[in-house]
């Protein structure tokens, strides 16, 4: 049954060095607090999986936590580059980063296959692109009816998926509202699913056809208000577009990046203090 643990305990218990780990959330509900906790605990050699690495993976990569990245779009949305990701790929700083690169459609098919515990996903995809020439995991099957060749991707089944959601109940059911990205699929594909939530409630509103991850697929729930900042939580707080712009400056320079991470992430014991440290003075 679902465990209820503080975030630090959840990471300590369920995410070892070397794990494959997906922090999903498409612009919305990105589990930043969990990413910071991975950094605080000094995880190494992680295989990071995420459609859109975003700032949180820029931070993990810049801190040297990752050996490998499975992804389909690695930018700062609406702003530009992820400078730490670029530095790792272009200059191997602070360490080399292996790439397992896909398109969104391919990643989506891979998560779906993982959620269904099929070994591969099929799509009419990767047409007219050099990606398969550089990624031997992108292969093909022949349709047994039409003879058509279709692209395949191996299923993604992360050791751990971490999501952020608005609410869980005391049984461990998790309710998500708003843009959902591939969160449901990444959650169901995981060997262990950890969900940080804005709030734990006695009773969720009736879900009917809404998005709910039932308690028996949720390994751990960790209460973590504000845990998606600078991403957002529909109905709770907005996306901090300004921070996404500022990050472009912070991350552009190795020293400034390291100083910022040292002060705000390594220098704080948890997410509440992290947010407090940003409120004090210029982040």
């Amino acid at each position: 049954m679902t465990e209820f643990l503080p975030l630090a305990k959840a990471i300590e218990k369920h995410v070892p060095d070397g794990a494959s780990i997906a922090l999903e959330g498409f612009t919305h509900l990105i589990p930043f607090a969990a990413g910071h906790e991975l950094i605080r605990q000094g995880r190494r050699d992680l295989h990071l999986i995420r459609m859109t690495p975003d700032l949180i993976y820029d931070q993990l990569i810049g801190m040297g936590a990752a050996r490998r990245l499975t992804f389909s779009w690695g930018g700062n949305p609406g702003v530009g580059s992820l400078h730490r990701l670029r530095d790792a790929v272009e200059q191997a700083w602070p360490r080399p980063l292996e790439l397992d690169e896909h398109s969104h459609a391919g990643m989506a098919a891979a998560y779906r296959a993982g959620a269904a515990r099929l070994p591969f996903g099929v799509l009419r995809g990767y047409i007219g692109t050099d990606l398969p020439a550089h990624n031997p995991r992108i292969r093909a099957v022949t349709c047994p009816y039409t003879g058509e060749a279709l692209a395949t991707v191996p299923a993604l089944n992360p050791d751990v998926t971490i999501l952020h959601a608005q609410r869980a109940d005391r049984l461990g059911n998790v309710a998500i509202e708003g843009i959902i990205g591939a969160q449901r699929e990444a959650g169901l594909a995981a060997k262990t699913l950890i969900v940080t939530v804005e709030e734990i409630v006695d009773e969720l509103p009736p879900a009917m056809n809404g998005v709910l991850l039932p308690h028996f697929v949720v390994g751990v729930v960790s209460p973590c208000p504000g845990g998606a900042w600078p991403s957002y939580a529909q109905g709770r707080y907005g996306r901090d577009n300004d921070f996404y712009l500022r990050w472009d400056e912070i991350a552009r320079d190795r020293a400034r990046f390291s100083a910022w991470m040292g002060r705000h992430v390594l220098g704080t014991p948890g997410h509440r203090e992290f947010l407090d440290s940003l409120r004090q003075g210029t982040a």
Partner: protein
Amino acid sequence: MSDYSRDEMMTVAAARLLWDGCITFVGIGLPSAACNLARLSHAPGLVLIYESGTINTRPTVLPLSIGDGELAETAACVVPLPDIFSDYLQAGRIDVGFLGAAQIDRHGNLNSTVIGPYGKPRTRLPGAGGATEIAAQAKQVFIVMKASPRSFVPRLDFQTSGGHFAGRAASGARGGGPAVVVTDVGILKPQAASGELVLTVLYPGIPAEEARAAIGWPLTIAQELESMPAPTAAELAVLRALEARTAAAHRQPVRLPT
């Protein structure tokens, strides 16, 4: 009406190419502005789909990211991202997909992956995202890019998305590929036989020679050149009001959650 920027001309040109009821797959930036301009002017029934899963969204301000809350709140519905790519794009329901890139070649192939060799790039770009399958499966692709010899190149460093490449017909791509490339110096369209992009539409005050200079391959100029009229006062008013609303909305400070 001559008091408009080249960006405005591009946006208006892209918007004019859209028709009422057209189902578009929209990216952030200029395509998003063009689609919303069209929706707020001549094409009120334009359907906007963003890859974040928001279907028929009708934002009052332009989103800064592909997954802004505004898109969810004004959408007919929000579906999982895998559904967007399988049941909408792959299923052939998208009339027009918008793309941009760091590099384009004369057949409309695009690079948004790397400058330099893949294994040791000089510049690592964000990558494919939705582009590869938009290029292959949307019924038509509209490319929007500012012209410069650095980006309109004879040869791509990496082909992220396919245009009118050799073998497209037998490739499994069901869409028609790039129908138009809207630049800041004019509009290119593919020749029927070769698929080569040629200059077909001029903007007011920008001669074909200026377009030729901005393109990194020897640009063919169509025998019958059309000219696109300048933005109307009404178009500019709608576009500028949209951008002003957007700027005002994004000036609202975001409080850190507590």
